[in-house]
């Protein structure tokens, strides 16, 4: 069954390439089917699917455990939400379909080389998406970064192959590496994934790509980031436990501060939000790099909150930035969008009554329990900076004297944005909506033997 999650969008992409005019319809159908499919997979957890009947560790296998299940559920939900906006997708339906297939494959795969292939497809699709609205130079810079990252990732895969004689992840997890080879492998993976996960200083592309058009941030900062963070956890914790987690911790803290500081300096709304997502990625990575529960579940909880909030922010910002040239006081004409934007930014800061509060405070609390006094201090400093620029933008968009005449807004944007914003409030009151899946994901990610067991015992599948 789980192969369908990759196959459906891929077939749709071929069809869309043949008949351009069907593009959006095919995308919408594929997104709906994929979402239903990932929902229905809940009965199949945990299981694996060995492609071509080649049993692991010989062939390529797809692994559906709690972690990958909730990841593809979340990701496909985002693809579904984006399907509401034909004007954002525009002519990019084919590429979006390819991206959907690749992201699903990237999350589900249990094979290292296979994951490299999917990552390359993600990069290729993302670069094309980034070039929307003639944002070519930024897309080119992204291409260079993705290229370097891909080659390092590939070298890491080769290293693993020379050591274990297999490309299977479970095999690699089972294999006991020497400390030196483990460091070499994880470092290469860290750099390879670091580009997509927006790790400092590999995140130079983010500002140009997210800030260049309305499609790239909506899908890249949400679904693709989520898959990268999933893979970061899977590789750094499940497969190659230990390794360079402390290095990741340090780099992630730098990422957090660097992203927020750059956002404070930035004057352009989309670029500010792009930097802000770097900062948030830094926080998630820092928490993830603790490598154990309950930090892992909190990292994914924070990630889910952040992605939901960022989806709202980028939807609203992308819509307004390309509609008006001067945004001062524009929310006076777009009250619904404005409310959603404000709620999402308050959630991002972590004010009580909004989702971000739940995750940020839990992170601080657990860090203190673990005896880490640095992370909370830096987290609060970063939050202070974040609050500064987000309040600045909110005040400017709501209260400055309006320069441009407001036009009638799009109901799709209004509806989706406000629904997600209300959802963020709901999560404050019922954090388990996100926290329960996040902790299930985290359990699956931190349990190495569980993962190996699934792959070795769950042979067969569809």
């Amino acid at each position, binding site marked *: 069954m789980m192969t369908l999650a990759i196959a459906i969008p891929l077939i749709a992409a071929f069809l869309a390439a043949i008949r351009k005019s069907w593009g959006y319809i095919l995308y919408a159908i594929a997104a709906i089917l994929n979402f239903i499919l990932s929902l229905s997979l809940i009965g199949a957890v945990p299981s694996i699917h060995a492609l071509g009947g080649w049993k692991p560790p010989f062939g390529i296998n797809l692994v559906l455990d709690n972690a990958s299940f909730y990841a593809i559920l979340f990701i496909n939900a985002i693809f579904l939400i984006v399907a509401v906006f034909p004007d954002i997708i525009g002519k990019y339906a084919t590429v979006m379909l390819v991206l959907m297939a690749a992201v699903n494959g990237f999350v589900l795969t249990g094979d290292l080389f296979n994951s490299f292939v999917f990552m390359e497809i993600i990069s290729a699709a993302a670069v094309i998406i980034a070039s929307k609205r003639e944002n070519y130079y930024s897309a080119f810079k992204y291409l260079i970064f993705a290229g370097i990252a891909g080659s390092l990732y590939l070298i890491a895969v080769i290293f693993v192959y020379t050591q274990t004689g297999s490309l299977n992840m479970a095999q690699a997890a089972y294999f006991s590496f020497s400390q030196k080879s483990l460091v070499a492998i994880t470092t290469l993976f*860290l750099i390879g994934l670091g580009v997509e996960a927006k790790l400092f200083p590999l995140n*130079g592309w983010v500002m140009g790509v997210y800030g260049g058009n309305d499609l790239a941030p909506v899908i890249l900062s949400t679904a693709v980031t989520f898959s990268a963070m999933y893979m970061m956890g899977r590789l750094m914790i499940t497969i190659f436990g230990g390794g360079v987690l402390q290095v990741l911790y340090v780099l992630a803290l730098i990422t957090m501060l660097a992203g927020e*500081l750059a956002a404070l300096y930035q004057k352009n709304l989309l670029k500010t939000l792009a930097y802000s997502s770097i900062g948030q990625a830094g926080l998630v990575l820092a928490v993830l790099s603790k490598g154990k529960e309950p930090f892992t579940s909190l990292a994914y909880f924070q990630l889910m909150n952040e992605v939901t909030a960022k989806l709202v922010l980028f939807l609203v910002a992308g819509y307004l930035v390309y509609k008006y040239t001067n945004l001062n006081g524009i929310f006076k004409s777009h009250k619904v969008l404005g409310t959603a934007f404000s709620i999402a930014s*308050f959630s991002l800061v972590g004010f009580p009554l909004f989702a971000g509060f739940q995750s940020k405070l839990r992170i601080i609390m657990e860090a*203190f329990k673990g005896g880490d006094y640095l992370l909370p201090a830096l987290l609060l400093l970063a939050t202070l900076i974040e609050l*500064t620029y987000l*309040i600045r933008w909110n005040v400017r968009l*709501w209260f400055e004297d309006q320069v441009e005449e407001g036009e009638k807004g799009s109901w799709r944007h209004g509806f989706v944005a406000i629904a997600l914003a209300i959802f963020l409030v709901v999560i404050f009151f019922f954090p388990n909506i996100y926290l329960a899946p996040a902790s299930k994901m985290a359990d699956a990610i931190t349990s190495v033997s569980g993962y190996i067991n699934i792959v070795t015992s769950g042979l067969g599948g569809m």
Partner: protein
Amino acid sequence: MAITLISILALSVAVYFISKLSWKVGAVINALAGAYLMIYLFTLKVGSSEVLGTLFGEKLLLTYTNASFYFSFVSMLVILAVMVFAIKWLDSQKYPSAFNMFLLMMTAASLGVFFAGDLLTLYIFWEIAVLSSMLIVPMGKKEARRAAIIYAVMSATGTYMYLYASFMIYSRYGNFNLAEVAKDLANDPSMPFKVTVYLLLAAAGIAKSGIFPLHTWLRIAHGNAPDAFSAVLSGQLVKLGSYVLMLVTAFFPTLKMFQGLELYSKIPSPNYFLLALGATSIIVGTLMAIKQDDMKMLIAFSSVANGGYILVGIATMDAIGFEGGILHVFNHALAAAIIFMAFASVVYRTHTTKISEMGGLIHKMPITFISYLFAIISLAGIPPMSGFISKWMIYQALVRKGMFVTAFIAFFGSIGSFLYVFRPLAGVFLGQLPKKYKDVKEVPAIMWIPMVTLVAISFIMGVWPFPILKPIEAMRADFAISPSVKIADASNWLVRGVTGSWNPVIVFNLFIIGFAIAYLLYTLFPKPKKVDLLAPHKEEGAPINIYTGGEYIYTPDLYQYNTKMYAGFERMYEKHPSWEKVLDMLCKFFHDLGQLVHGWFFRPSPSAYAFWTVMTLLIVFWVRW
């Protein structure tokens, strides 16, 4: 308690939509909700406790104490007055619906702060109060947009320090509960931990109540917020800060906690540090207030100074000083609220806050004038208004403790306050009426009634302060600060100090006699004659024969004598170092740091990216190998 707070929070959202249909109805609902809350405070039993919910496996507690009652009561007095005031005043505002919503939301959240039984509940309500008030601020003047950001950032600076300390406490004691934490802190052997926690928790109060060095937001936020809301900001919201300062200095047994750290006259050095900050605030607030030409900014700085008095009073850790500081919360809340409402009334009619553009409004707005007059008498600490008693009590404590430097600063601030409160009085209400305000009228009754009510309360409490001293005495008993004399002695009509006692009734009677004599003289002597600005120049076209400095005067409005009123005094500290500039530099530092990061890592060409990738790779290998 929990249900009431949550339903008021929910009601505030409903008020927005009601206000969309008719903001008047929304404002009336607000006032009714405020009145309900006021009555509700008296129905609650002191000592009752309730669970609000659970968060992170910890119970969120609401506990109603004497301190909760006192602070909530003062808050509701101010808020209720402003809510009634707003029923008419809102028609001069651009965002009445949002104003109603956020005002009610802030009210519920502030009460939540006072009811909070643990550090986390306090934080949650605190943030809601900050957020909702922060969203009202930018509805004011143009500069108010920047003010809102500065307010949010300064407030968050304090709040996050508080949050950090709360979690430090939690990780050490496994508890957020205030009462438990107080016990644990008393028995904790680690002095560095206690001092750190104490100062970090106090930071929230320092930022909120406008104590130096986090005071600069008051000028810009109080000065530019919507006029009536400044009354809430200055009268009520800064008292949240005083509440937290009271919690950490008096509720936490600091004398026991910091045993061995006594610095001067039995005050431990961490408390002394706060006391010094309070004293600095008195100086800074007073000197800066004297300079202001904008009447709202002037009173904003006076709030800094008065926040300093409150802190000094509480931090003396002396029974009479503590009571004086807490009583000053009430006095300053009322005085500031009346003053800002009086200003709001003036602005409602004249549309300006510049003192030098006004004058002579006493004939046009007599009730507003009287309210302002009584309020500043109280603010400056002149009998028979209640403001005198609290300042007198603070002086008593300082004198008794032999803290002559602080006492001198307190006296200096008091005399300085005569100077600055007189400035709007002279500039706005006295003097010559500019021609453009010829047709100005008194504000409608719905606006002056709340002002006059607060004046009456403040006046009565000046003559008979024992009802308001009762909850304060109860608070003091709760915190186990024992006095050497019985301070409030209602049966003998006395407020006792160490150097003597104060009999407010006799003083009031003396004042009445003095007033009667003055009135008698006023009626006996010939009536003053009202003359035009250009007295001999009665008719248009007649020759002008008023001149000064060798010039004939054509535009008397330009000769407002309030411009640079205290120039001589101001010149003495003209080139004072500016703390705002220091904070601006700090902002600029972060901004430049952002530019550096942006320029070095995010903006460069692809080749630089490749360079950084390889560098990272090499550094990681080097570190880990």
